[in-house]
């Protein structure tokens, strides 16, 4: 199996961090068209799907295959890179290692045994009535505000307004975005679901640089959050199961 690539440090960092918020270890699918991944957190509450096209790389060469990576180690290694750095990746199949080079530094990271990584999740089939497109920072802002009063947040649609609401024992916050303040909103049915901020705040860390995200919502249904990375050459999708309102 061959895998050899060069990519901007920033793009790689954003990509890996979008995944490592949910899982510590992951199995990447490599192929001539790019790399992809599907993973679920240990509690089976949240899922991430990830695709990075070969176009996101400065140079890219790969045959079909799978590798297991320790994302905690990888994030640490990438933390050493300057954002202007180029990162070189090369797989050594014989030694079962990935070599990572940047700005004169080179690391070799041992690959994980594929059988030790949890199986790829079955993806739920969901038909969610609400689709809203908004600025990633708006969701991030709502999540941050909610964290000051509670450990959960309600997301829903009321007429022409996408609302995000959190109630604590004494205080509450609400952010309402009208159709005009959103990039797009389509609703074919009611939507109101409650989510754990533990999960949502980790996920929303990846959103601060994202101009446009699409969220799908239903009534007491999981939320889907989709956005692109790497100047449109990569896709990230989250799926988060709701909490039940008491």
């Amino acid at each position: 199996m061959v895998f050899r690539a060069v990519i901007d440090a920033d793009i790689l960092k954003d990509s890996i961090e979008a995944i490592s918020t949910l899982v510590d270890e992951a199995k990447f699918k490599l192929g001539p068209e790019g790399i992809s991944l599907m993973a679920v957190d240990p509690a089976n509450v949240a899922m991430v799907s990830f695709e990075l096209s070969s176009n996101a790389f400065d140079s890219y060469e790969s045959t079909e295959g799978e590798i297991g990576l320790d994302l905690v180690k990888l994030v640490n290694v990438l933390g050493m890179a300057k954002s202007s750095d180029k990162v070189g990746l090369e797989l050594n199949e014989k030694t079962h290692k990935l070599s990572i080079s940047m700005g004169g530094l080179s690391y070799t990271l041992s690959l994980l045994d594929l059988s030790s990584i949890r199986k790829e999740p079955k993806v739920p089939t969901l038909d969610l009535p609400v689709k809203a497109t908004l600025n990633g920072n708006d969701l991030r802002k709502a999540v941050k505000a909610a964290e000051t009063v509670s450990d959960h947040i309600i997301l829903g649609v009321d007429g022409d307004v996408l609302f995000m609401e959190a109630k604590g024992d004494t205080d509450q916050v609400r952010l309402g975005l009208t159709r005009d303040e959103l990039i797009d909103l389509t609703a074919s049915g009611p939507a109101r679901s409650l989510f754990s901020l533990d999960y949502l705040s980790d996920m929303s860390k990846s959103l601060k640089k994202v101009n446009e995200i699409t969220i799908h919502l239903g009534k007491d249904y999981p939320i889907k959050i989709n956005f692109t990375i790497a100047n449109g050459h990569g896709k990230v999708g989250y799926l988060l199961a709701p909490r039940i309102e008491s």
Partner: protein
Amino acid sequence: MGADLRDIIEKKEIELKELFGKTIAIDAYNTLYQFLSIIRQPDGTPLMDSQGSITSHLSGLLYRTTNLIESGIKPVFVFDGKPPEFKAQTIKERAEIRDAAEKRWIMARTLGEEDAFKYAQASSKLNSQIIGDAKTLLGYMGIPCIQAPSEGEAQAAFMAINGDADAVGSQDYDALLFGAPKLVRNLTITGRRKLPGKNIYIDIKPEMLELNSILDTLNITSKQLIDIAMLIGTDYNDGIKGIGPKTALKLIQKHGAIEGALAELNESVENFDTIRESFLYPEITSTYEIDWEKPEEALIIKFLCDQHDFSEERVEKVLERLIEASAQKQKTLDHWSP
């Protein structure tokens, strides 16, 4: 106790959070023995109230079950019923061992010997008061208790086979002999634990054992796993002297069943047909209800603090955690999976 299959069985260390949202049918007797054995003072004396009644198990049930519930696990405790008749000999032998250990403990404690704890552990025994108190406390905590007609592990295994539980929780391997598709060990002892008598701490993680994967790896059937267990000894028979799990596995792989292995060894296992049947078709019930209720705060305080002299302050603190965790509303994606 149970068949010691450890050396040949494949297990996987997991994180407690991987059991989030999972229903675990816990072998109650096994867990109570464990609490009675490890929750003791340094000289081996169990926790007791002012009446002299043992409370080690109540402490274990309160604190450790709350930890499980906080991790999103939904526990169901399965209690033993009447033991099968041919287990009588084992039960008698065990009672004798415990009595001897108790005498040895009392002597060691009087003399201030260091191994008093060890003998005290070996003397742990369940009585009807201990079991009754355990059921009362679990009931007040809102945790379902299922009464097995006979072996608790067999009933727990049936509930897992039936899909009403995601796994069986026990330290023993016997649930696998009863056909449990998944067995979790170390559930109630997960975390940082001090080794008795030593100033050493170890980090214990849950272990997941999957029957199909074990049988595939060993290239045997579940019936052959039972035959292996009978060769090394189960709760119902002593096993052949000098035969450990690895030798037993080789013998069964070679001969296909216990008969050939016994012939080669020129040994016998009494009633092996009946024992095998009792693992394959144990006495179980399919009428049981699994419902989790809200914890009854006032009743728990009355029972533990007024009747058994627990510290009210400490009980209130853990109850706050239990009540919060019992209201667990987080769904998992399983719910929407195809």
